[in-house]
């Protein structure tokens, strides 16, 4: 494992840049546990101070320190992304593995359902969901709704790997030795698809953080939970850009872009490493 990481770091510039960006973000997230101010309290510091040594990223119009706000917000956003990704992984794994292994009619039906979910535009549906929930809307419910809609892309990818496993000799051998379908999928095929699942997880985290930011900024989530999106929402409510408090908007935008690019580069380089053709061509190990 360590050797793999070292090879990746040495030979893939994408992996190096991506992991540095992600490490910086994680560092800030960990730092949020040591925040000197409670995240929900306002007017704990003088408002509207530009960045300085006392307040690294300045303070906002609600009298909060922007750096510590960003740290807590990033922690919540990341947690949200990870939960959506984990829940939707379960769905995409089940659909992808079953579809690829069983094949035939089951495969055709599952894949047309899959393609259906790929096409349906989520934003109007999630907006409608908020409209019907209003104050009942919570962090967990939104995560559940997004997870149950955000699995199809990756299910297709997992299926394509599972499809190639089906005709391999060890699968035939497991069938002859009397393993059940569930056993074959869980014990034989799952380990093979795990690397690709890992890289899709990173992409899915990106996707869900992005969608959460968008919904929150427009005010379509629970705006009391500090996330990157709600932070920009409050900055917009106080017309921070017009008032010249640019650091209030710039800080969350900058950290979230760092997260997006970092996670994306990691997933791209891991994908290249998994595929033996590109690995030989680009990394050479």
């Amino acid at each position, binding site marked *: 494992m360590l050797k793999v990481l070292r090879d990746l770091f040495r030979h893939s510039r994408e992996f190096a840049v991506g992991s540095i960006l992600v490490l910086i973000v994680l560092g800030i997230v960990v730092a949020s546990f040591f925040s000197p101010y409670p995240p929900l309290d306002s007017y704990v510091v003088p408002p509207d101070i530009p960045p300085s040594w006392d307040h690294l990223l300045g303070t906002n119009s609600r009298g909060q320190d922007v750096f510590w706000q960003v740290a807590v917000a990033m922690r919540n956003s990341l947690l949200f992304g990870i939960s959506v990704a984990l829940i939707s992984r379960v769905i995409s794994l089940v659909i992808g593995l079953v579809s690829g292994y069983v094949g035939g009619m089951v495969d055709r039906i599952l894949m047309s*359902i899959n*393609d259906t979910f790929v096409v*349906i*535009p989520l934003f109007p549906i999630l*907006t409608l969901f908020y409209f019907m929930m209003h104050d009942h809307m919570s962090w967990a419910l939104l995560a559940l709704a997004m997870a149950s809609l955000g699995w199809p892309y990756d299910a297709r990818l997992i299926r394509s790997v599972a499809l190639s496993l089906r005709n391999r000799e060890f699968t035939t051998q497991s069938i002859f030795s009397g393993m059940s379908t569930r056993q074959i999928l869980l014990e034989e095929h799952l380990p093979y698809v795990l690397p690709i699942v890992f890289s899709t997880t990173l992409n899915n985290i990106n996707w869900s953080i992005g969608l959460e*930011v968008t919904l929150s900024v427009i005010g379509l989530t629970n705006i009391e939970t500090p996330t990157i999106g709600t932070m920009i929402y409050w900055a917009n409510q106080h017309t921070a850009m017009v008032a010249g408090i640019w650091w209030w908007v710039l800080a969350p935008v900058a950290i979230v872009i760092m997260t*997006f690019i970092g996670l994306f580069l990691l997933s791209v380089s891991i994908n290249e490493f998994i595929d033996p053709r590109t690995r030989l061509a680009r990394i050479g190990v």
Partner: protein
Amino acid sequence: MRSYLWYFLRRLGQFVLVVFVGINIVFFVTHATPIDPVEQAINSATQFGQSDPRAVEIMRKALRELYGLDGTLWQQYLTFWKRLATGDFGPSISAFPTPVSTMIGRALPWTVGLLSTSTLIAWCTGNFMGGLAGYYRKSRLLKAAGIVATGLQPIPSYIMSLVVLILFGYLWPILPISGGFEMNVPPGLTFAFMSSVVTHSLLPVLSLALITIGGWFVGMRSLVSNIVAEDYVVYAELAGVDRHRILTSYVMRNALAPQLTGLALSLGGIFNGAIITEVVFGYPGLGTLLVRGVNSGDYSLVLGIASISIIAVAAAVFAIDLVYPLLDPRVKVR
């Protein structure tokens, strides 16, 4: 020809399935959630001052009928489909008595225009540049373009629009940042109106194109670099076929087919991006209308936009599917 008919029927089936599943999700969301839109509307209407309980009861009954929420769940479900089939979503509460279908009809051309222009620009440039980058692997300039494209790809549309807005709205204010056209120009087929529409669309189109271009670029580059290694390309090169011709009709044409499938698959996501971008720039399309509907508690409007979005995206995907055989003639043979 028979296999083309089969292909057509299969895609038509997929279109019907998308509409069916999507509309069912919409029905489920509106009926399995705790908030009753009728009570919501009554609450906001009776918030100020006393109301006669009898009047409230009449209002409740009228609203139930208006929203199609009377009768058993099964009856409501049938009403829902019937209204959808006739395109009748009832009048809007926030802009009474304008029918929701009229409001959507007014907003839809803006969204379609924005979406198709930006997608066309991004898909064509992304694929062309990506194809070049895959074929001429050593070019410094194309490598740099690849790095930029990779960096732009994962940024969600809201953040991108915000960055574009700050760059061209505050730091270097050269373009209009809000609305679909200048307020003092009367709509019509005049040059002033047209140029106003174009200048107002530049920033939304730019921010949408910037995000999607990266995906096409990277996808096309890897497709082309795989195809270049294929035997038939090597033979063509050995046989002395013009390099330019190899690139366009041997390599790129083969790579375009999967990219078109990719466009069909990602259209839902691109649509999301477009309506979000509209919100940021106050563009008079579906997105802005949707958010306005939510903020003013307009149930019919939000429901109508969600349903129409699903049907519109499914129809667009169906249209792309029908173009596909032109690029990949194998569909006809199989």
